[in-house]
């Protein structure tokens, strides 16, 4: 069979979700290389946008046929990815759309605004349109801003009051601290929205320690197995989770390889919903062997 090379450029495993991305990318690479003899998949991680631009250059000089990339930041990486494309490489962009839509041949999208919106809508509904909510954001980057705006859209038109928004840096420890301080600051909180499941771990522990009963539930997102398990088990504090699976990178790789070898028409957009995981459908999203 013909030899082809797919390069995968993703962020480094610097917190839970990106860790999941790296895990799934590496696993999928092994699987694809088995499935398509002659296929070589190079997975490279980068800690920030500038290094990712470097990595893209380096990958291109090795001669590649397709690139699957989850860019750190759309604004920064649109041009470097465009340059790769100019070498005749098939481009698959994952999760974060580039500023120029014509660059990507295939776009496998996680929907960041939707993740926020679904969370907001759920909270609005569950609290009957009225209550006090605190928000713990991730890091001040674009994705976070998108989710945050989506959340505001979700609760729009209700009497839900967002008491506070602070950054938890997608870290359990920082989220724990912020939540402790929220609990000192606000005597009455009805619900908490954190942007991802990692941070929810810290939030739950802080609430647990304070023995506060006013908080009815926490909404997080991503689909970390511990959280899915809690939803499955009917944990009151975690009634739902919003899917934002790091495995989307595997889907993208799969489609790209299929395009290369099976000559399937894979161009276009492939949108993954920000699915609301509830007690009923949780078992479909529970992968006990995943590290994330």
């Amino acid at each position, binding site marked *: 069979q013909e030899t082809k090379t797919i390069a995968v450029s993703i962020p480094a*495993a*610097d*917190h*839970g979700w*990106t*860790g*999941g*991305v*790296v*895990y799934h990318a590496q696993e999928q690479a092994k699987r694809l290389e088995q499935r398509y003899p002659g296929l070589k998949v190079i997975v490279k991680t980068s800690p920030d946008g500038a290094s990712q631009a470097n990595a893209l250059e380096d990958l291109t000089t090795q001669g590649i046929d397709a690139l699957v990339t989850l860019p750190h930041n759309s604004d920064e990486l649109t041009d470097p990815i465009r340059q790769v494309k100019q070498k005749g490489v098939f481009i698959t962009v994952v999760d974060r759309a580039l500023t120029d839509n014509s660059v990507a041949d295939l776009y496998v999208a996680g929907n960041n605004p939707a993740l926020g919106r679904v969370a907001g809508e759920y909270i609005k509904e569950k609290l009957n349109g009225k209550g006090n909510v605190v928000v713990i*954001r991730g890091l*001040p980057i674009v994705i976070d801003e998108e989710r945050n705006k989506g959340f505001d859209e979700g609760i729009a038109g209700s009497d839900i009051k967002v008491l*506070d*928004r*602070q*950054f938890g*840096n*997608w*870290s*359990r*420890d*920082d989220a*724990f*601290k*912020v939540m*402790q*301080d*929220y609990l*000192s*600051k606000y005597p009455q909180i009805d619900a908490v929205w954190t942007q991802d499941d*990692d941070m929810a*771990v*810290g939030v739950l*522990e802080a609430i647990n*320690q*304070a023995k506060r009963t006013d908080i009815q539930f926490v909404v997080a997102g991503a689909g970390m197995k*511990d959280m899915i398990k809690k939803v499955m088990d009917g944990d009151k504090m975690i009634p739902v989770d919003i899917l934002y699976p790091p495995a989307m990178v595997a889907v993208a790789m799969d489609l790209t390889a299929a395009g290369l070898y099976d000559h399937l028409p894979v161009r276009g957009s492939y949108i993954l919903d920000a699915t609301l995981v509830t007690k009923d459908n949780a078992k479909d999203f529970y992968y006990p062997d*995943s*590290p*994330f």
Partner: protein
Amino acid sequence: MTDTTANKTAARRSFGDIDLRAVAPFVALAVLLVLGALVNPNFLGLDNLLNVLTRSAFIAIIAVGATFVISAGGLDLSVGSMSAFVAGVMILFMNTGVVAGSLPMLAVAMLLALGIGALCGLANGVITTAGRIEPFIVTLGTMGIFRALTIYLAEGGSIAMKAPDLRAAYRPVYFGNVFGVPIPVLVIIAVALIGAFLLYRTAFGRHVIAVGSNEDVARYSGIPVNRVRTLTYVIQGVCVAIAVLVYVPRLGAATPTTGLLWELQAITAVVIGGTALKGGVGRIWGTICGALILEVVGNIMVLSNFVSEYLIGAVQGAIIIIAMLVQRSLVRRR
């Protein structure tokens, strides 16, 4: 006669000097506490203060170790990722379940953590002294190494304690208290006491100060400079491990973000506490105070409503610079 009087006055003056320099961080802390109370009445609530005190444990304990390293003229940038690594290995060991019974298992795991911490410190110390490389470079290197090993062990995800009973048995080490004093606070006090004892009252402590003050003089005085330096890194490693012992029961997991930037916080705490980065001075209690200052600033930031969340980093940076300015002007005015 006149001589004796002069002597007395001089002694008093110089004590006054030293006292002021040692007291300055505490004054800065007091000012911050007042500021906090003004910003939010809940700030002075017992719960909030205990929270802040308790969670300052990690940085405070690590910073005690850093006080040794820095006093001896060294630097350790690897403490943050070392924390993650030690925590990861400790949890993986607990997850194997090779020791029966929660308490025996905990005891063994804790010893293991301490041992690994000491070994990591030893590695830093030996490479720095035997290889005669700037500690900045060595520990920046090991920082990368420990962090990567942690991520490798976690396969990019997190390493969480699996056994619920073990987790339950361990939880009180962070969340428990003795007569209302949270256990982490007791640990801070114990570590600081031992640290102060080592640094101020033993020959080893004297040697640390001598090495940091002037390496040549120390060598010509028959002090085993390399051994002393190396030992400070080992102490740093053990302090990191102790911090981990208190850290793990809190969330029961090690993740890629565990200990991120702790090195900068620890060094900042040490410097705010009055220890000079060039070595030769070490102030354990100042360091503890520095760690508290950092945590209080963070707490005030969340409790206040004045600044946009985007600007918190700026305000924190400014407060720390201002705190140092206040300190300096205090000391200079005498």
